[in-house]
């Protein structure tokens, strides 16, 4: 009945399916439950972010539809595919950030009106995290949900991590005008996309997947370092009496 199962051509048990889905989305789920579900606004951000990236994927599929299906075992059209998709998504990320700046202004003026404090740094970081998580979830569901196998799940996990945290880096980079952060996000995205092309070679995924995880851990480290620096900065700025 399900097209996805037809394509794989094997009978999959429910337990295995849930297992693979959790493999890809487990960390996101725990992130969701611990951070995002506490604040309703973050859930709304997550949903809108997922919607935006789903629309981006639909637009990309629409653009590439006349050229598909591509010939098998020829890898250079896929390079074009990845390149164009990454460029489009990075441009969209910038637009997303612009929209978020507008929303931040609205929220700040609303907070002033009802005499509440303005958005804290942690709030802004959390909104960026929710946006990134939306991106990651959209990606995982798109690439992984139809064809639940261990390979996809493992690769999807790496990508979810990359997307979640590069959104945080990107938002901070655009906000502070930090060139390093601004450039590193598209670079990471592009290199991750290109690394999956390595899977074309036979036994390529043995090299490709560990490298992908290397990129993911680099993203995590960079994001963690950046957030730590910002928090220390803001604490020093506001002085020891507050927070």
């Amino acid at each position, binding site marked *: *009945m*399900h*097209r*996805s199962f037809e*394509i794989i051509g094997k009978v999959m048990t429910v337990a295995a399916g849930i297992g693979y889905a959790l493999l890809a989305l487990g960390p996101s789920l725990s992130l969701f439950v611990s951070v995002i579900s*506490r*604040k*309703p*606004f973050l*859930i*709304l951000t997550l*949903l*809108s972010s*997922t*919607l935006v990236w*789903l629309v981006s*994927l*639909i637009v990309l*599929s*629409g653009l590439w*539809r006349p050229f*598909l*299906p591509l010939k098998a075992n020829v890898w250079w059209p*896929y390079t074009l*595919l*990845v390149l164009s*998709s990454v460029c489009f998504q990075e441009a969209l990320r910038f637009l997303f950030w612009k929209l978020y700046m507008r929303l931040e202004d*609205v*929220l700040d*003026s*609303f*907070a002033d*009106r*009802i*005499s*509440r*404090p303005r*958005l804290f740094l942690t*709030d802004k970081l959390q909104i960026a995290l929710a946006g990134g998580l939306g991106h990651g979830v959209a990606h995982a*569901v*798109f*690439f992984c*949900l*139809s*064809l639940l196998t261990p*390979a*996809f799940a493992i*690769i*999807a996990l790496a990508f979810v991590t990359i997307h979640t945290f590069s959104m945080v880096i990107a938002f901070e980079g655009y906000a502070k005008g930090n060139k390093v952060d601004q450039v590193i996000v598209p670079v990471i*995205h592009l290199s*991750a*996309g290109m690394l*999956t*092309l390595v*899977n*074309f070679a036979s036994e390529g*995924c043995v090299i*490709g997947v560990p490298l992908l995880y290397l990129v993911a851990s680099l993203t995590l480290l960079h994001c963690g370092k950046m957030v730590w620096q910002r928090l220390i900065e803001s604490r020093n700025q506001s002085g020891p*009496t*507050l927070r």
Partner: protein
Amino acid sequence: MDRNQQRPRSSILDSLGEELIGILTPVSICMFTVVLLVCLLNSDPSSSSFSSIATAAYSETDSDSPWDKLLGAFLNSLVFVAAITVATFLLVLLFYLRCVTFLKLYMGFSALVVLANLGGEISILLIDRFRFPIDSLTFSILLFNFSVVGVFAVFMSRFSILITQGYLVVIGVLVAYFFTMLPEWTTWVLLVALALYDLAAVLLPVGPLRLLVEMAISRDEDIPALVYEARPVIRDDSRLVQRRVWREQRSNVNDDDVENNVVRAEEEEEQRSEEISVPLIDSSSSSSSRPETFLEGIGLGASGAIKLGLGDFIFYSVLVGRAAMYDLMTVYACYLAIIAGLGVTLMLLSVYQKALPALPVSIMLGVVFYFLARLFLEVFVVQCSSNLVMF
């Protein structure tokens, strides 16, 4: 120095948008349950001969040409929408003649039928699927208890709000699951037809639902309808199936006495909670009109009970259930589209502040996304995934 001992002030992010989530959660639960049921009980579509008024004009078979199917689906939808219109006008007539008790009894009866009959059928299907060992006596006792409690929950107003909400969601799930068993073309054309009907019935001056709302407001009564309320309200309620969204307005500029009665009952409720309630500030500025900010316009700033008719739950879930019969990718796309449509409808509700149809925007977006996903996304994702290319 004293500021050290002050507790840190909470950010606005803590409680902004709470009521939106309050209505999104049950809608999501309903859709998720229907998708689960469809996946678990995915029987062969042609084998289940589900005949209802929606297939009265034409029953689809696999061998017909697309044009025949389209025509047949169109006829089916016409019959169904006509039946619904007649029933709604009958409801308006009864409400006009103040036969409210009869309406309440009828709604209790229909809740009983749905829970006992449809609930029983689905439970039997599930028991059959999972080979659950249970005997008929236990089953009938459990079903009886379940249905009776359900009838009381939707019938009486002073029931625990959580149980009432749960039972309303269960009724929505049961009816939606049975609607997904309609033939495919009929389902899609029916959904679009119902969206258009909803638009007409609520917005046109001669529409039955608009008449109903106006009568209810002018008499300061509540419409007897099965309505899901996202917040507990200490008032007398009675319910029926309805298909629109409206919100009790925290109106500080409204001079209508009727509205003020309604709003007052909620303000007591509000002041107990700690969430951001703009009216706490507004009560000081009396009745001077102030320009609404963008956040209140999109419904995140104000607080008030959002009500969604059960028919909306049902048809959202029918759309998602039908998408589930194709692939999980389409479920994902349709779910996001419906949520986006609901968000847009709630935004419009805050702007226009009158009863609005909740079906059209969501159903239209859902249908568009379903076909986009089916035509474009699937090929793309198969291409990429079969070669382990991702970005």
